[in-house]
Structures are given as structure tokens and as C-alpha cells.
């Protein structure tokens, strides 16, 4: 009885749903290629935390105003952004400008959906080569970094003083180990990092991996094994907590803020939070095995212009991109985010004039290395997945570091060789 009575409203409801879905489809299709005369340009970025009316949104709009157009900005979560961009390209309605996480640039470029800087007539000669490398594929450059961030080692000054460790003395793995041993004597925890089985895990492991002299093309080299043994040794000795296996970089930071950890591996984006911590903090570059700053992976977004069927739109697109990538533009972006280091020497100089204490970070960014560089391009995600799996296997005790990395190399070679 009840079921019968429900039929009509149910039918109405399903009709409404179906109509709504169809309407949704059709309204989606006028997103990107809208008519040039309308003066609306679409812009996607991965900063949903910056809402409408925020400094960042206003800054984007200001660049549109300068070019005499309105910018329609949509913010997505980082991973969702890549998927959305792919879907839009498939439907042939890409936005005019995308700010994209740097390891994803070569992935999108490979599909042929991104204009090269030469096609657009953009000048990238001032950009630091190590940062630009992430946007290069087969000799072409597909975008400009709007800023860079990277990893370094934050420390808790109170704990280091108590343990009698001078942060300046930590220059290589040996002094790092000695410092951790001294700290463990005080009953505090030594170090925390993220060995999660996602890209974050690889991102955090790479400074040690590269710092040992290993290369992503050979995951089971003796240097690579040494790097993994270093981490494993810290877990076994109790210098690092077992929970690093499930720590995200955010969790790492929360652990550090409890004041129980002497060191935390984390990024430029925590500079403000570190200044507000309940204890004095400092930062040093991540040590390489035999001394000096280890190359940490670069983070940060590229500004790219997807291919449009209406090529007349490029003129304005270029104006918008140029507005974001002048030295003043870079510094403004850096200040808006508080954690972005400009990718050009001019920009870095201008930033240091305003904020001299960011010099460790500028140094770290200069030493940093793109994950997709060395012409790895789209092979990187495949290799990275094997790398984080190996790190997890070794740290959780499934396999020893050598066996884990051997398996990783075999799997990575099988997958990348097939393409």
C-alpha cells in the first residue's frame, strides 16, 4: 500500500534527478572555451584554502584586471586537480590557466594538452634550471614555476640544548647519528618524518636517497640501500617512532609541535607555524651522507596553459601568466603564501631583502632537485610507487632493505620498460 502511494512522488523525483543531471552535463561544457569576446578566462588552482575574497583570490583577479578580462577561478584539491584537468582535456574544454603541482606537469604534457612556452612566446631564461627541469619533457618546456618549496630539518632548540647538541655541527650522516644518540639519552624522541605509502613517503625519503648519491634509475644501488638502512637503523634504535610508517607530513608536524621531538623533516609551508610553536625552533638543511646540503625534492606549482581550440585566447593568457611571473609578481606570491621561494635569482634576492631569515630555505631550494627531472618524466610516478613500497616493507620488517629495494627495482624496470 505504502509502496503504491509512493510511486508518483518517486517518479517525479527521478524525473527531477534525471533532468538535473542532464542540465549539469550541459552547463559543464561551456566552462573553458567560452567565447573570447565575453572576456572571461578560466583559472584552476590547488588552493581551496584560499577562498573567494582572500588575498590570493584578489591577486589572481588583479592580474585579470590588468589584462582587461575577468578571471573565473576554481580551486581543487591537488590530486583532484590533475584528474579534473585530464577530464576537461578529454571533453575539449580545458581552462585557460592551471596552477599545477610540479610532478604532474610532465604527466599532463605527455598527453599533448599543454602548450609549450615557445608556442606561447614566454621567456623562461631567468628561472633556475633545477626548478624548471620538472616542467621539461623531451627538450620542451611546458610551464613556469610560480614558486618553490622544499624540505629541511626543523629542530627544537630546547631539546638540542639539553642534549648538548649544536645544530651547526650536523653536516653529514655521522654527525646526525651522533646527535640522535645524544638526544635519546635525554629521554626525548630523536626525529620524526613521513614514510607513508603515498607520494609523500617518497618525497620525504628522496633527500636521504639522493643525499647518499643514489639515482632513481637504479633503486637497488648500494647507495640506495645505505639510505634505507639509515632510516631503518633510526627505527630500530628507537630514535624515530614506529608510527612514521603511517605519518603524513601533517602528522609529522603535529608530532613535532608536541615538543617531544628534537627533529622533524618538513617543508617551507610550516615556517609560520614553527615561529608560533611553544618552544624555540630552528631549521637546518638536510645533511647529505658525506656532508653538505642533500638535494631535497622541489615542491610547488607550475603555471601552465592548456591547449585551446580558439588560439586567439593565448594573447590574454600570456598576459595573465606574465603578470604572475615578474620578479615583483613572484615576491607577492611568496608573501601571499608565506612559504613560497621565488624560482628566479632576482625574485630570491628581492624576497631576502624583505625576509632575511628565509636564507636557509633559499639555499635549500637552490640545492633542490625536481622529482621528474633527469628526463624521468612520466616514469617517475611508477618508480616512486615502488620506492615508497620498498621503504614501507623495510621499515615494517617485511623484508630487509636490500631485498625490498631489489624487488622495487625489478618491478619498476618491468613497468617502465614496457612503455
Amino acid at each position, binding site marked *: 500500500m505504502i509502496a503504491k502511494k509512493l510511486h508518483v512522488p518517486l517518479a517525479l523525483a527521478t524525473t527531477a534527478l*534525471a533532468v538535473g543531471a542532464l542540465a549539469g552535463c550541459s552547463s559543464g561544457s561551456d566552462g573553458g572555451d567560452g567565447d573570447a569576446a565575453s572576456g572571461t578566462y578560466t583559472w584552476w588552482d590547488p588552493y581551496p584554502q584560499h577562498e573567494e575574497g582572500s588575498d590570493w583570490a584578489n591577486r589572481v583577479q588583479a592580474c585579470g584586471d590588468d589584462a582587461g578580462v575577468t578571471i573565473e577561478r576554481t580551486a581543487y584539491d591537488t590530486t583532484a586537480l590533475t584528474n579534473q584537468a585530464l577530464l576537461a582535456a578529454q571533453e575539449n574544454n580545458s581552462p585557460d590557466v592551471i596552477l599545477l603541482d610540479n610532478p604532474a606537469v610532465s604527466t599532463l604534457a605527455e598527453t599533448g594538452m599543454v602548450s609549450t612556452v615557445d608556442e606561447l612566446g614566454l621567456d623562461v631564461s631567468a628561472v633556475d634550471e633545477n626548478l624548471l627541469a620538472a616542467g621539461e619533457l623531451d627538450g620542451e618546456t611546458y610551464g613556469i614555476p610560480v614558486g618553490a618549496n622544499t624540505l629541511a630539518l626543523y629542530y627544537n632548540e630546547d631539546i638540542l640544548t639539553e642534549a648538548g647538541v649544536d645544530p651547526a655541527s650536523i653536516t653529514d650522516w655521522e654527525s646526525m647519528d651522533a646527535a640522535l644518540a645524544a638526544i635519546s639519552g635525554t629521554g626525548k624522541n630523536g626525529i620524526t618524518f613521513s614514510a607513508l605509502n603515498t607520494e609523500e613517503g617518497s618525497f620525504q625519503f628522496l633527500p636521504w636517497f639522493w643525499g647518499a648519491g643514489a639515482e632513481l634509475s637504479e633503486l637497488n644501488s648500494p647507495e640506495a640501500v645505505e639510505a634505507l638502512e639509515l632510516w631503518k637503523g633510526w627505527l630500530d634504535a628507537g630514535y624515530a617512532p614506529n608510527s612514521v610508517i603511517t605519518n603524513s607530513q601533517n602528522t609529522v608536524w603535529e608530532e613535532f609541535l608536541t615538543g617531544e621531538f628534537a627533529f622533524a623533516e618538513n617543508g617551507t609551508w610550516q615556517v609560520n607555524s614553527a615561529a608560533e610553536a611553544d618552544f624555540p625552533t630552528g631549521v637546518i638543511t638536510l645533511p647529505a651522507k658525506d656532508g653538505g646540503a642533500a638535494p631535497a625534492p622541489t615542491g610547488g606549482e607550475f603555471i601552465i596553459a592548456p591547449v585551446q581550440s580558439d588560439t586567439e585566447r593565448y594573447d590574454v593568457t600570456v598576459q595573465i601568466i606574465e603578470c604572475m611571473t615578474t620578479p615583483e609578481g613572484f615576491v607577492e606570491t611568496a608573501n601571499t603564501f608565506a612559504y613560497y621561494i621565488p624560482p628566479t635569482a632576482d625574485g630570491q634576492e628581492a624576497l631576502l631583502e624583505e625576509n632575511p631569515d628565509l636564507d636557509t630555505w633559499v639555499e635549500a631550494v637552490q640545492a633542490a632537485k625536481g622529482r621528474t627531472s633527469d628526463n624521468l618524466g612520466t616514469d617517475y610516478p611508477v618508480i616512486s610507487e615502488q620506492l615508497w613500497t620498498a621503504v614501507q616493507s623495510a621499515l615494517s*620488517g*617485511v623484508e630487509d632493505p636490500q631485498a625490498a629495494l631489489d624487488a622495487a627495482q625489478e618491478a619498476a624496470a618491468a613497468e617502465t620498460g614496457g612503455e
Partner: protein
Amino acid sequence: MTSSLTRRPAPGTDTVSVTVPDPRKRRPSRLLGSKWVAFAFAAPLIAYLLVFYAFPLIRSIDLSVHDYTIRAFVQGNAEFVGFENYAAVLSSPLFGQALLNTTLFVAFSLVFQYALGLALAVFFRNNFPLSGLLRGLFLVPWLLPLIVSASVWSWMLNSDSGIVNSVIVAFGGEQINWLTSPETALTSVIIANIWLGIPFNLVILYSGLQNIPIDVYEAASLDGAGAWKQFWSITFPLLKPVSAITLLLGLVYTLKVVDIIWIMTAGGPANSSTTLAIWSYREAFGTGQPDLSPAAAVGNLLIVIALIFGFFYLRIQRREATS
């Protein structure tokens, strides 16, 4: 009483005489009208089914029989590879482990969710002060957003600072690396999933219990059957149809669980809690490079598994109906 019994046959003959006359004239017109009306009423539903069920299913099969690299995805020129993706999935070293993990995850989740859900349903059948409130509280896991409950579970099970370990250590036990050891990661996510599934079982089984007439229990207790005997001889057998559908729905829900495992362990460490659903999700969205075709192949295998159990259920139901 007897008078009412003798009166009954009269209206019976009356109704028969109404339906019998002139069947030729009326039926065709009514049928024609009802056909169009029926179609008009069904049309939105059919459209809905096509858009939201048939299309995704066909698209998923389409993805799995082509080699969709990202480039091919954008340019729409994926190569047809037949069952190659399925072959690659089935021969992958991960397949055996993922299948075993899926089986363990589903089996343990279902058994404990059902047993605990049933125990609670029987418990709440007796009304006692505050029973309504308590029953409501048991629904909380269902109402909480999964991201919240899964995060809370992963905090509680944290190796170094989780409350579970601090209790174990306080009582002299040794720290257990719940989420970070390959031996316990799967167990941990199963425990969390059982907790999540209990309210669903409780609600459906509780409503099933309401349909068992109370006089059967009264008769049984007059015959001297104790609570235990009553449960096994009345409650359990009479609850069979409800139990079957609860278990089937539970199975389908559990097979495709991604969120709670993904938030707690992301399938790790080293794949020790990777189920087929997690594997599929990771191939498609978990790495920097979406591998849509193998992901779709794994997803379709899951659909097939769920279908097999669906047919099982239908067969059992049909057998019960005929018997």
C-alpha cells in the same frame, strides 16, 4: 460465531459475478491506455537507470578492455586489448594477496558484525529503562562521517601515542604496532570495520525481530523452553530471511570498502592490508599517474564476485519459496 460463518459464502459469489461479464469490450482499451501510462511513468526511471547505472557499467567495461594510458584517455584513441588487462591483473603477484586480504576482511567483518548485531538486537528486544536511548547511541558509528571515525580509529591505534597501546602498556603488555606492522594492519582495519557495520546489522535485525509474533515465545515459554532454547528454535530460524538479506547487503558493502582502509593504512604497510577495492582505487587515483584500465579491470572483478553471491542469495530464496 456460527451465524457469521454461514453468511460468508454469499458475498463470495457476488464478487465473481462482477468480474465475469463483458471481458471483450473493456480489456483492450484499458490495456492500451495502461501501456502508455505505464511507459510514461517508467520513462524517468528508465532514463535514470540508463544514465546512472548502465552507462557507468558499460564505461567501466570499456575502460577495462582498452589500454587507456593518460595520453589515450585525453585523445580518445585507446588501443583495444581484449582481456589483456584482466590477464595482467590475475597474474600480478599482488592479486593473490589482495584476494586473500579481501576474503579475510569480508569474512571476519561479516561474521562479527552479524553476531554482535544480532546479540544487541535480541538484547534490545526487551524494553528496559533507557533502552531506546542506548539503542540510539549504537547508531552513532553509522551517523559519523567516515573520515571522522576512521581518523579517530587511526589515532586510537597509533603505535606510540594511541590510547589502545597506552592501556596495554599500563597493564604490563607490550606495545603493538597496530597499523604499522604487516601482521596486525589487516586485523586493525577489520576491527574498525566491524565497529562501523554493527549499527546496520542491529537496525535490520531488530526490525526483523519485531515481525516475530510474541505469542510464539509465550507458547514456547509455557512449554518450558529457556532463553537459549527460544533463541535457537524460534528467533534464529524465523529470522532467516532477514539474516540472508542483511548478510548479502553487508557483503556487497564490505567488498567495496575503500575509505576506512585508505584513511587508516592506505593498504600498507607493504600491501598487507590491500584489498581488491584498495588496489583498484590506488591504481586509478592513488599515484601520480592514473592507470585507469587495470583499475577498471579490478573493479569489474569485484562486481562479478558480488554478482555471484547475489545469485546465491536468489537461489536460496527461490528454494525457500518453493518449499
